[in-house]
C-alpha cells in the first residue's frame, strides 16, 4: 500500500455512503412503482402486448376468379388493406374487442361444414360446404362496407349472388323473407359462452332484398379463402345495409312467411332496425350516421344514402318511411 493513498473513509464520507445506498433504494422503488403503474394501466386499457396480431395466417388461395374489368357493381375506390380487413372485426362470437376475432380465429374450424337450406322451399336440403361452393363459379365483387359504428372499408369479396343459391332450392309462393343463422358452438365460438347477445346470431332479409343482384354470399376475400374472423366458410354481404346485417359463418338459410327475428333488432330494437339500410339522415342514438371514417383514412367522409347503392336499390323501399323502418 502506498503512503499517499488516503484511507477509504476519506474517499467516501460515511454520510454520503449511506445516502448512496438510500439513493439506490429510492431509485429502485421509483422504477418499480413507475413500471407497476404503467403496466397496470396498459393491462387495463387493453393495449396488452401482442393483442394486435400483425401476422395474419394466410388462409390459402382458392380458385382464382376470372380476371375481369370492374363489373357494374364494383367500386373503383382504393381497397382496404387485407391486414386491416382481417384484424379489425366485429364478430362477437369470437370476442367483443375488434382484435379478438383474429386472435381467436384458430378455434373456428370451417371444415367439415354443412349448410341447411329449408323452410318455404320446394327442395329443402343440407349440403356439404364444398359441394355447395362447387355449384357456383367464384366471382369477385368490390363492395363498400359501412359499419353502424361509423367506419367503413372497401372489400374485394369472392363469392356468388344469393339469388343463385335460392334458385337451387326453389322458394315456394309463400316465401316472403329469408333468415340466416350463424353456427352455434361455444367450443369453436367462445363468445357464445356468455349471453352478451341471444345466440345463435340470426339475420334476415325480405325476399326481394335477398334476390337483388347485389346481395352476395362471400366465401373469400382478396382471392383467398375467407378467414374465420371474417365469417368462414360462408357469410352474407348486403352492401347497402350496415355491416351487422351480414351474418357470418352461416349454417342455415331458411325461407319464411313472416319477418324473422334478427339478433341486434331483438337486443335493442330502438337502435338497430330490421332494415338497417345505410342512411345518413337517420342518426343512431349514439352515433351520427352523417359521416364515416374509411379505415386507413384520418378524416371523415360523408356517408351516402344506401351506402352509395341508391341507384340500384332505392326502388325496393318505394313508399316506405325509412325513418320509421330504419
Amino acid at each position, binding site marked *: 500500500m502506498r503512503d499517499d493513498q488516503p484511507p477509504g473513509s476519506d474517499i467516501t464520507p460515511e454520510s454520503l455512503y449511506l445516502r448512496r445506498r438510500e439513493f439506490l433504494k*429510492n*431509485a429502485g*422503488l*421509483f*422504477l*418499480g*412503482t*413507475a*413500471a*407497476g*403503474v*404503467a*403496466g397496470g*394501466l*396498459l393491462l*387495463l*386499457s*387493453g*393495449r396488452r402486448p401482442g393483442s*394486435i396480431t400483425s401476422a395474419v395466417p394466410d388462409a390459402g388461395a382458392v380458385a382464382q376468379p376470372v380476371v375481369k374489368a370492374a363489373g357494374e357493381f364494383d367500386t373503383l375506390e382504393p381497397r382496404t*388493406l387485407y*391486414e*386491416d380487413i382481417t*384484424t*379489425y372485426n366485429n364478430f*362477437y362470437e369470437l370476442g*367483443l374487442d*375488434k*382484435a379478438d376475432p383474429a386472435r381467436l380465429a384458430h378455434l373456428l374450424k370451417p371444415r367439415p361444414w354443412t349448410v341447411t337450406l329449408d323452410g318455404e322451399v320446394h327442395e329443402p336440403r343440407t349440403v356439404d360446404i364444398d359441394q355447395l361452393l362447387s355449384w357456383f363459379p367464384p366471382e369477385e365483387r368490390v363492395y363498400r362496407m359501412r359499419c353502424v*359504428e361509423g*367506419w367503413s372499408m372497401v372489400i374485394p369479396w369472392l363469392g356468388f349472388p344469393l339469388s343463385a343459391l335460392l334458385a337451387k332450392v326453389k322458394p315456394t309462393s309463400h316465401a316472403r323473407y329469408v333468415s340466416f343463422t350463424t353456427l352455434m358452438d361455444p367450443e369453436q365460438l367462445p363468445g357464445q359462452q*356468455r349471453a*352478451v*347477445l341471444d345466440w345463435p346470431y340470426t339475420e334476415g332479409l325480405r325476399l326481394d332484398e335477398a334476390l337483388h343482384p347485389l346481395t352476395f354470399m362471400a366465401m373469400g376475400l382478396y382471392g383467398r379463402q375467407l378467414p374465420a374472423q371474417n365469417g368462414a366458410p360462408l357469410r352474407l354481404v348486403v352492401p347497402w345495409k350496415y355491416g351487422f346485417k351480414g351474418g357470418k359463418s352461416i349454417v342455415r338459410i331458411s325461407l319464411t312467411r313472416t319477418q324473422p327475428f334478427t339478433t341486434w333488432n331483438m*337486443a*335493442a330494437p330502438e337502435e338497430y332496425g330490421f332494415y338497417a339500410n345505410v342512411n345518413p339522415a337517420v*342518426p343512431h*342514438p*349514439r*352515433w*351520427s350516421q*352523417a*359521416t364515416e*371514417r374509411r*379505415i*386507413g383514412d*384520418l*378524416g*371523415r367522409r360523408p356517408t351516402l344514402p344506401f351506402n352509395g347503392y341508391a341507384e340500384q336499390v332505392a326502388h325496393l323501399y318505394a313508399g316506405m318511411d325509412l325513418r320509421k323502418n330504419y
Partner: protein
Amino acid sequence: MASSPHPWLNPAVTVGGLVPLVLMAVQGPLGGLGPNAIEASLNDTGLIALVLLVASLACTPLRIVTGWTWPARVRRTLGLLAFTYACSHALTYVVLDQGLSLPALLESLGERPFIFVGFAALMSMVPLAVTSTNAWVRRLGFPRWQRLHRLAYVAAVLGVVHFAWRVKKDLTEPLLYGAVLALLFALRVGEAMRKRRARAASAARNPA
C-alpha cells in the same frame, strides 16, 4: 430539511402514469394501435382517465381502512393524471375524430346524451385541476376546498354513465367501475357517520 418519507412516490406515479399516453402518441401513427387508431386512442384514454379518477378517490378510503399515509400523498398526482387523460380523450374526439367540425360537435352534444355526460364529467374536473395547488387550499380554506373537491365523485359517476351509455352491449366493465365507486362512497359515508357519532358522544359527556 426533512425529506418526505417516500420521495420517489409521486415522480414514479407521474412517470408511470404518463407512459401509456406517450406510447399511444408514438404507436398510433406507426400503426401499433390497429387499423382504427383514433377509436383505439379514444377507448384507451377514456378508460385510463376513469381508472385514475377512481384510484384518486380510493386514496382516502384506503388510508381509513389501512392506516397507511402514502395513499394521501399520491391523491393529487392521480387526480391530475386523470384530468390529463380526460383532456387527451376530449381533444382526440374534438380534433382527430370530428376534425374540429363545430356543427358536428354541437350536434353530438345536443343529440347524443352520452357525449353530453362525458363533456359534463370533463367540465366538473376543471375546477378541481385549477384548485389542486397548495396555494388554492390556503386561499379557499381547507373545509371549503374539501367540499369543492367532492366534485370528483360527481365526475367519476358521470364518467361511469358516459362509459355505460357508450358500450354497445356488454355492460360488465362499466358496472364494475360503478360498483367500485359505490363501495368507496359507502366507506366514506360509514367513516363520516362514525365521526359524527363520536362527536355526539363526546358532546354528551361534556355538556356546555
